[in-house]
């Protein structure tokens, strides 16, 4: 029996199962509207979901053979993922419960209508901010501190090549990975935050200005932005970074400052587009006309009348843009032109530790090193996006 036959049999079984499921459902519940009006596609979805769930449970309880060298580490990673998901859900639930009981009436109301995903996202953001702010106090070692043992495996189990003093192991030159991860929050997230703020300040104010004044200024700014947006952003950033690295040496200014400016400029074009589009929808409102006819100045129009109404989409975009900036920095660091060593940075850590990925099939704990940094990036991105989705949903609900 080859793979194709197996797949075909499973597919047929699912199809038949869906039909039976719906038929039995109709008979058992005596044509309840739920089953009576159920489409075949919907029934198929239920059956497929159930089948996947059964498979997941079965796979989860497969014997764990870490030490025999048999290449089935997939089970281990799957278990970690499931356990992580469960822990994250419980944490998010508890956090939401806390938010519902503690705090002012306003925040309690906010938490009451909050989905679990959003509370998870907020928890992640709070955790990261905490780590970033207090990195120096929390991290057991310095970010550039080279310790005795190199390439210590994560897990802290001496039998498997770990060391309890370095719970997440050390890298090739013997720096503690846990400390570097914590400092990485400070460097990567901090720089990304500053960059995003700058991008929003530039893009947002220019966008609103273009929307309010229109005419030649709008044309000039918009066409300029079009030109910048036409160039692939990562390649453009690489190009500018190469130029900037020469200047940085000549002027004695850290390259990181240039990186912040360059990424802020590239990302401000996207913010400009959004701010202008949102602004254009707002400037046609009668209350803007009323303010203009009152004789209000430009500053009042932009900051007092337009900005409060553009807050929701801009905040949502801020979350998304933050992720993109953050990924761009990680990508630049991965390529070697971003945050410079010995500063800890997640992108650089992934690049430096990447070769360990090859051990994944046989020694999951050894392969974890690069995945930890990658996971830190992924977790923050997912968390921020959860919060952004929730805010978008809330702001679209407000409009009705």
């Amino acid at each position, binding site marked *: 029996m080859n793979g194709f036959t197996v797949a075909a049999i499973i597919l047929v079984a699912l199809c038949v199962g869906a039909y039976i499921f719906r038929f039995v459902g109709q008979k058992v519940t005596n044509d309840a509207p739920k089953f009576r*009006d159920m489409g075949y596609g919907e029934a198929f979805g239920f059956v497929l979901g159930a089948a996947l769930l059964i498979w997941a449970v079965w796979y989860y309880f497969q014997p764990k053979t870490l030490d025999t060298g048999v290449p089935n580490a997939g089970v281990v990673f799957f278990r970690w993922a499931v356990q992580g998901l469960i822990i994250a859900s419980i944490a998010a639930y508890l956090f939401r419960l806390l938010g519902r009981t503690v705090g002012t009436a306003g925040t309690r109301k906010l938490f009451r209508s909050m989905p679990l995903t959003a509370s998870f996202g907020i928890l992640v953001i709070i955790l990261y901010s905490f780590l970033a702010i207090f990195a120096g106090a929390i991290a057991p070692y310095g970010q550039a501190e080279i310790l005795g043992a190199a390439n210590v495996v994560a897990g802290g189990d001496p039998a498997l090549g770990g060391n309890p003093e370095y719970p997440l192991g050390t890298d090739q030159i013997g720096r503690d990975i846990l400390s570097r991860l914590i400092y990485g929050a400070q460097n990567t997230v901090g720089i990304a935050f500053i960059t995003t703020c700058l991008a929003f300040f530039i893009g947002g104010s220019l966008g609103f200005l273009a929307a309010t004044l229109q005419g030649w200024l709008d044309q000039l700014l918009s066409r300029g932005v079009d030109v910048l947006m036409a160039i692939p952003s990562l390649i453009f950033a690489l190009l500018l970074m190469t130029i900037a690295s020469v200047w940085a040496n000549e002027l004695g200014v850290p390259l990181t400052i240039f990186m912040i400016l360059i990424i802020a400029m590239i990302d401000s074009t996207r913010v400009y587009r959004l701010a202008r589009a949102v602004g254009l929808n707002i400037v046609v*409102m009668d209350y803007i006309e009323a303010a203009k006819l009152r*004789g209000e100045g430009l500053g009042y129009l932009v900051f007092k009348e337009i900005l409060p109404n553009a807050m929701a989409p801009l905040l949502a975009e801020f979350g998304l843009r933050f992720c993109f900036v953050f990924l761009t920095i990680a990508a630049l660091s991965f390529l070697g032109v971003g945050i410079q060593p010995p500063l800890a940075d997640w992108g650089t850590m992934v690049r430096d530790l990447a070769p360990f990925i090859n051990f994944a099939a046989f020694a999951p704990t050894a392969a974890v090193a690069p995945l930890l940094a990658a996971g830190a990036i992924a977790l923050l991105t997912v968390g921020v996006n959860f919060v952004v989705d929730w805010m978008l949903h809330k702001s679209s609900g407000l409009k009705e």
Partner: protein
Amino acid sequence: MTNLLTIKGLKIEGRSDETWNPIINGVDLELKKGEVLGLIGESGAGKSTIGLAAMGYTRDGVRISDGSVDFDGVDLVNASAAVKRSLLGKRIAYVAQSAAASFNPAHKLIDQHTEGPVQHGVSNRGTSVEDGIELYRKLRLPNPDEIGFRYPHQVSGGQLQRAMTAMAMSCRPDLIIFDEPTTALDVTTQIEVLASIREIVEEFDTAAIYITHDLAVVAQMADKIKVLLRGDEVEESDTRTMLSAPKEDYTKSLWAVREFQRPEKPPVEKGAVPVVSVRGVTAAYGTTDVLHDVSFDIHAGRTVAVVGESGSGKSTTARCITGLLPPRMGEIAFDGQPLPSDYRKRTKDQLRQAQMIYQMADTALNPRKTIGQIIGRPVEFYGGLKGAKRRERVNELLDQIELEPSKYYNRLPSELSGGQKQRIGIARALAAEPKFIICDEVTSALDQLVAEGILRLLADLQDKLGLSYMFITHDLATVKSIADEVVVMKNGKVVEQGPKVEMFTPPHHAYTDLLLSSVPEMDPDWLNDLLKERGVDNIGDAAVDKM
């Protein structure tokens, strides 16, 4: 004869704030074949919800919690999706308020028309197209042979509404639900649509539920009328009884709205300088002239109503006066002094003297600002009042518009009703202490009772503060109740102007006459008489086109 549609004890609930709140509290309804029932009530009365429930349908977040909907022996509340599919579109059809928003802009009218009959297997595409053209002809659409092959945006609003009626007719349903089909239309367009809908409903002996808030319209269309108030039935009886002898107080108050009338004012003294004087204004959007040599005066303490259909240049005139659209020729004078044509060149005091109240209070108030901020801004901006003095002045203004200051000061516009929002718009204009206010269709988005309240308030304020109003409207009932002088506009030109009394007594200019005659009256025979008197081709837009 058995009922075609029987609704018994219908209760509908809507979900908000995580609880189910009642929308309809037990309404009964019976409809025989070929009968037309008018459902009237204010917004929020549950008219549309009942209309949709008659098809066994509820909007998202709304559910039928109790009661039965029986259509020709089929229980629509519990019917399966398959059963509903076989009925909806084929035996029950729906005509929505905004045909422009309900047609799919990406498909030609005829393609959307034939979809129903073909899907339901009533006929094939070829016969259905022929039938569509026949229906278009019956509904007196211009060029019936080709109009169906246009896209929705290539057809006017009134024509779309008729095309939609034709589409509802395509399967010859037993029941059609009309949800405010003429509310968004001009009077001259409305009358045409009304006449064609009534004719076709009679011809095919179709039963209909006609939902509207306009009593005069429902008087023409319905055999019997049901009045609703906040989800409850107030009363039901046949049209003539309902109009001549309404039983309930609420119904009587609805009927009485149209009786509000301001007392006559003495004629303006000779030689008095008008507050606002529009002199020979010609204005253009781009290179197209939209106003041609418009002139009229507005005197102190008077209301000038500017009347005309959409596109007649009423609002453009207002834009010229406010300086948003500088005229190409002519000038605007204020107290005899010519004003700079662009608002940016006017002084703060010139801007203060002329204020504006907008049609849509929703877009006229910044949704992120509290009432205190909205009204307080002009107080501070023009009067220079700050802190406690500003608060005091805002409270005074809120008192003037009959809203309790302590209750409303910190609210956001979204926490107010439509009528209250419009009052805030008025207060914001008053805050500038102007001499002259432009009211742009201020009551057209409001229910009749609420609109009447606004009109009374504006009239009181005029008496107290000696304001002058320019009242832009397409509703002649409003003109009758509030105006001192009337300016009739058509295609950017003033066709007639003069004191109200003169305007409402013959002889009229042909266009004024047409406008006046197109306003539905409460008399159920009005449309019949008009059709008899003038003939089908001499009413509404058809007659306008002939001019």
